[in-house]
């Protein structure tokens, strides 16, 4: 071990193991995490004879598929041997471990992070019984298509249509314009053979807004796109080039009535539309993903600040005093100013994500009992927390990269690749500015409520009522 770095470790005033246990939750969880990491890494899936950075775009995808399949084969074994639950998928797939194995994106992630959770959250019991088994066994590979070439965060603007035909008891899917083509979903281009498509539902001549439909994209044997399905890859991106992001257009594609996920809203055989108890219910999947995103940001900041801090302990540059050797660059206050906020941010976001996750579970429990009181508050909170955590993470990772100077500019530092992964999070699952403005709607409503003194404010905005709003007012 580098002498400078070892000296840092010798001088540390607290037990690092105690801190690790605290971050994981306790010693037991640390042990479980280490075992999981050891089990996954000893498979050697992450090893690359030639670094992926030197491969072509096409080769990168082929490598990503190869690694993903090896990873899921291992997860399936995990499931059989230890009867692993969803959390194991998340632990292996999400966060550091997943991105370590699949570096620049995984073409099957959405199968576990969006396709399965959406069916669980919005499918009827019968639909779950039919689809979940096949999905967990990887007999089918799914993805989730909502965003279109012309429409993203503004979901109500989506143009893809699903029109109910009572004579055949089918939905007919169409992409009326080029801007209505689905654009972005991971795994959509060449990997998935099924897809959950968010489309405007039309029945009995009336539009009932956005609803989820399961559509088969490719033949299960030949993997050829089915008739009326126009699908392909969207091309090279700033990062995540292993994710196989695709586009998808429909031309009179017919699907059976029971391919609309009907846990909330329904279309009866004669075409009658039965409304969902609350349109907010469909936010479930999106909120779950946003809470996951905050957690992921912790992992990325932790990795970047670990790299930059260790590097700052071994890198010596520029004499501080003429008669002394070049100091470690961590001795410069400006270097600490760049790094230490990143270390603190990991803890701040980790505790915040755990706190909002507990709140999400409490609110979801209330949802089941029909109490929607705190849903708007949770929605507003998940929006701004997603925006702030991703923006801070992108800034932290970039600051860590700059703190490592030219060596931070090397792809072998892993900081540029990490920046590509983190900065994407500022846009997907709700573009940050739109997220902040959605939260602002709730804050303005709360302000009016406080001013009219009509009813108690929910806990996270109660300060509005409590605080004399500063000198300006």
């Amino acid at each position, binding site marked *: 071990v580098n002498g400078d770095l070892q000296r840092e470790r010798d001088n540390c005033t607290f037990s690092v193991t105690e801190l690790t246990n605290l971050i994981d939750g306790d010693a037991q969880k*640390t042990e479980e995490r280490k075992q999981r990491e050891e089990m996954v890494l000893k498979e050697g899936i992450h090893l690359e004879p030639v670094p992926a950075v030197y491969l072509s775009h096409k080769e990168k995808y082929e490598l990503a598929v190869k690694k993903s399949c090896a990873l899921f084969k291992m997860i399936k074994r995990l499931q059989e041997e230890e009867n692993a639950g969803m959390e194991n998928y998340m632990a292996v797939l999400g966060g550091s471990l997943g991105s370590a194995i699949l570096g620049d994106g995984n073409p099957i992630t959405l199968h576990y992070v969006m396709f399965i959770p959406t069916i669980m959250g919005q499918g009827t019991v019968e639909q779950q019984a039919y689809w979940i088994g096949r999905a967990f066994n990887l007999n089918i590979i799914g993805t989730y298509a909502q965003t279109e070439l012309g429409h993203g965060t503004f979901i109500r603007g989506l143009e893809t249509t699903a029109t109910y035909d009572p004579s055949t008891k089918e939905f007919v899917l169409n992409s009326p314009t080029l801007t209505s083509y689905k654009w972005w979903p991971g795994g959509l281009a060449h990997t998935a053979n099924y897809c959950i498509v968010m489309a405007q539902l039309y029945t009995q001549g009336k539009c009932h807004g956005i609803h989820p439909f399961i559509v088969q994209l490719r033949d299960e044997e030949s993997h050829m796109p089915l008739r009326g399905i126009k699908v392909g890859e969207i091309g090279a991106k700033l990062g995540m080039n292993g994710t196989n992001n695709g586009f998808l257009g429909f031309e009179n594609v017919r699907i059976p009535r029971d391919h609309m996920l009907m846990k909330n809203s329904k279309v009866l055989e004669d075409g009658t539309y039965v409304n969902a108890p609350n349109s907010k219910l469909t936010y479930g999947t999106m909120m779950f993903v946003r809470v996951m995103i905050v957690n992921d940001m912790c992992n990325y900041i932790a990795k970047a600040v670990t790299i930059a801090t260790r590097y700052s302990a071994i*890198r010596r540059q520029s004499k501080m005093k003429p008669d002394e050797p070049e100091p470690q660059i961590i001795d410069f206050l400006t270097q600490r100013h760049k790094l230490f906020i990143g*270390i603190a941010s990991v803890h701040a976001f980790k505790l915040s994500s755990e706190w909002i996750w507990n709140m999400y579970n409490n609110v979801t429990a209330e949802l089941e009992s029909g109490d929607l009181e705190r849903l708007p508050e949770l929605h507003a909170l998940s929006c701004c927390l997603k925006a702030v955590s991703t923006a801070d993470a992108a800034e932290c990772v970039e600051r860590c990269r700059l703190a490592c100077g030219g*060596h931070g500019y090397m792809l*072998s530092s*892993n900081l540029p690749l990490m920046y590509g992964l983190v900065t994407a999070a500022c846009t997907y699952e709700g573009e940050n500015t739109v997220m902040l403005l959605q939260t*602002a709607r709730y804050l303005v409503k709360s302000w009016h409520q406080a001013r009219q003194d009509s009813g108690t404010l929910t806990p996270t905005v109660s300060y*509005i009522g409590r605080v004399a709003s*500063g000198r300006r*007012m």
Partner: protein
Amino acid sequence: PPWDNTIEGIIEGFHVVAAGKIGVCVNQIEKRQKAGLCYEDAWNMTSVQLASASEAHCRAIILATYFKETQIRVDSASPALKQVLLQLVDLYVVYWALARLGDLLRFTSISERDVEQLQSWYEDLLNKLRVNAVGLVDGFDIRDEILNSALGAFDGRAYERLMEEAMKSPLNAEPVNKSFHDYLKPLMQGKL
């Protein structure tokens, strides 16, 4: 209310800022509506401030949550670790106070002297945390294979690893690349 230059005081200050910003936005929207704009246009004209008010709201929540949850978290920690984790909370709160000074000056009664104190406090924290910086990142316990970085490996052999990674470049597989014969040599011999 008088400014309280403590962690709790700063967090309260962020709540005042958030409430103040929201209040200003509401006033701006109402003023624009009185001037004849419809609500949607008034909202759009105020949206830069609205986004900023949301960020202030979220910042106040993160600061409060981080401070509160750490108080709970360190209950079971050893005194040495407790001290470092509380220093990190202080650093985070004071960092953001300095980063959002404009808002604090606008909506609270923070003074120049308070600001000087905050700046010194921050720099002292950068000093105190120096000895534990590597320990704090080692505490994340991220394996080299997951870090996947020539600069950040546990053994600190950054220079050796940078060179090892460089040698993996396909260009280093041969000392003379074929483009020399196709282009460079003819160029240098005036035959291109």
